[in-house]
């Protein structure tokens, strides 16, 4: 650690409490949705034998899956609002400046291939990261829509009846209820792969970067070498 001894670093708030809470609620909702979703797809647990018809294991699995789903929808909407309208989150939008920069993209790939330096970023995320997040949000959007179509046919009296028309339209467009269920399942796999890659990249950056990026999603702080120090 001798190398860092005299280094002066500056602490700055990277992620606001709202951002962090949202991230972790989203995380736990998604994890629960994945596990309960696989149970719904193929009920691998058998309930304790009960002579009374009161142990509705599968129905409970479905109920909690739906509750977690609605939590995810609320997180999704909150995040969309936060992304577009909250000032302290401008850093995320600034990342889009780099989206069409081929040079920065190539440089980023070079960094990940361990042959080049990390490019200077305009916003919070690098190009590859940004593309992954856009992909995740498109997947989440379709998971939510297909989930709502499935829910519409499970519980007919929900407050979402006003959406029945557009959702039915989408259901026909996607090729019927069986296809909707399949798309829901396949997109889940997309999210699983995203999580694995996302966690690895976060750890990778925390190990080799000096900004403490993995701490930031818990404490909110990131450590930065100020420009004045870099010149020395």
């Amino acid at each position, binding site marked *: 650690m001798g190398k860092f001894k005299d280094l002066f670093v500056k602490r700055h708030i990277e992620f606001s409490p709202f951002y962090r809470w949202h991230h972790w609620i989203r995380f736990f909702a998604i994890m629960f949705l994945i596990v309960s979703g696989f149970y719904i797809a193929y009920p691998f647990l*058998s309930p304790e034998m009960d002579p009374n018809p009161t142990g509705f294991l599968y129905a409970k699995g479905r109920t909690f899956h739906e509750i977690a789903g609605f939590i995810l929808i609320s997180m999704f909407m909150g995040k969309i609002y936060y992304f577009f309208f909250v000032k302290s989150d401008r850093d995320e939008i600034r990342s889009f400046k780099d989206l069409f920069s081929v040079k920065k993209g190539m440089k980023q790939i070079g960094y990940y291939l361990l042959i080049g330096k*990390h490019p200077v970023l305009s916003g919070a995320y690098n190009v590859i990261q940004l593309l992954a997040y856009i992909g995740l949000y498109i997947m989440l959007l379709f998971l939510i829509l297909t989930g709502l179509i499935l829910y519409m046919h499970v519980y007919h009296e929900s407050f979402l009846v006003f959406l029945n028309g557009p959702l039915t339209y989408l259901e026909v467009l996607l090729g019927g209820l*069986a296809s909707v269920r399949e798309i829901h399942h396949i997109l889940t796999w997309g999210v699983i792969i995203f999580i694995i890659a996302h966690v690895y990249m976060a750890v990778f950056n925390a190990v080799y970067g000096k900004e403490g990026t993995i701490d930031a999603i818990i404490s909110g702080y990131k450590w930065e070498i100020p420009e004045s120090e870099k010149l020395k």
Partner: protein
Amino acid sequence: MEQDELYLSLSERLGKLSKFPKMRDDGKSISKLLEENGISRRDFMKWAAAMTAMLSLPASFSPLMAKAAELTDRLPVIWLHMAECTGCSESLLRSDAPTIDSLIFDYISLEYHETLMAAAGWQAEQTLEESIKKYKGRYILMVEGGIPSDDSSFYLTVGPHGQTGESHAKEASDNALAIFAIGTCSSFGGVQAAAPNPTNAQPLHKVTNKPVINVPGCPPSEKNIVGNVLHYILFGTLPALDAYNRPKWAYGKRIHDQCERRGHFDAGEFVQEFGDEGAKKGYCLYKVGCKGPYTFNNCSRERFNQHTSWPVQVGHGCIGCSEPDFWDKMGPFESPLADRLYHSVFSGLGADATADKIGATILTVTAVGIAAHAAISVIKKPKE
């Protein structure tokens, strides 16, 4: 009071219809026909009440339903067979005893039905041509079977003129009063339209521009076929339809939601394999492939063979036969949809792959990639 108005308008319509000439030569009435076949007036009224309930009409409408059944000989019906197995006609006609449904089907003025009519060859063709001409714009058209169309239409060549089924269907549809696609094949293409669809079989609604009411099922129950005729006689209009043009009174609810085994589904009690303890106890068939959760039909309420039984009651899951493209979308029939095989992956190499298998494979590749990247980056540190 809306009910009273409806009752009045329906009786008015039936009154008008009853003034139409009878089309049967023997002048036999339905009550006489039923009596000859050992069905009492009481049984007939019970049947009328059941049909009324099935169409979601109030019980007070039962006499109207009985009257509608008596007037079924006023509307000519032409029944065409396309590329099919005649299972839909069989569903209606083959019962252990003559049912009221099948007797009504005998009684209606069936002008043309290839399986039932005595005529053959030139004579049959002439009957069809003449019926279309004679009852132009007045007959009900029922079509059974998928229709090989466009360049492939020759796969179905019928009759002495060597006409294609497609041209028959088009001509008959153009001059029809109302059109019903009976069965999944004429509604959605069915088995002959399953991938790779070698004969380019199309559903009826793709062949004609006129509105088609789909009555899918492989086969649809006798009640759903006769119910549509009766609905038309009663109302003279098309019924409320769902997104796939299926009458809502029959296809408005999921099989799963009306299923007698639904309690076991919610309880998590599943048949693990055919013939096990759970199967004997009547547990849910979801894990052995029941597609009831994705299928809209009234089988779980109306059943088949005079309300005797239906597939799920017998112990095999629903195969989703009244849904579009069910041959391609609902397989495998005896395991859950999660086990669906993706045949097209890597031009056949992935023929035994399910979504989970493909997902797990990609996950493994990702994990190996991550491990390799992590290992290399320990040796060759990333540049700052």
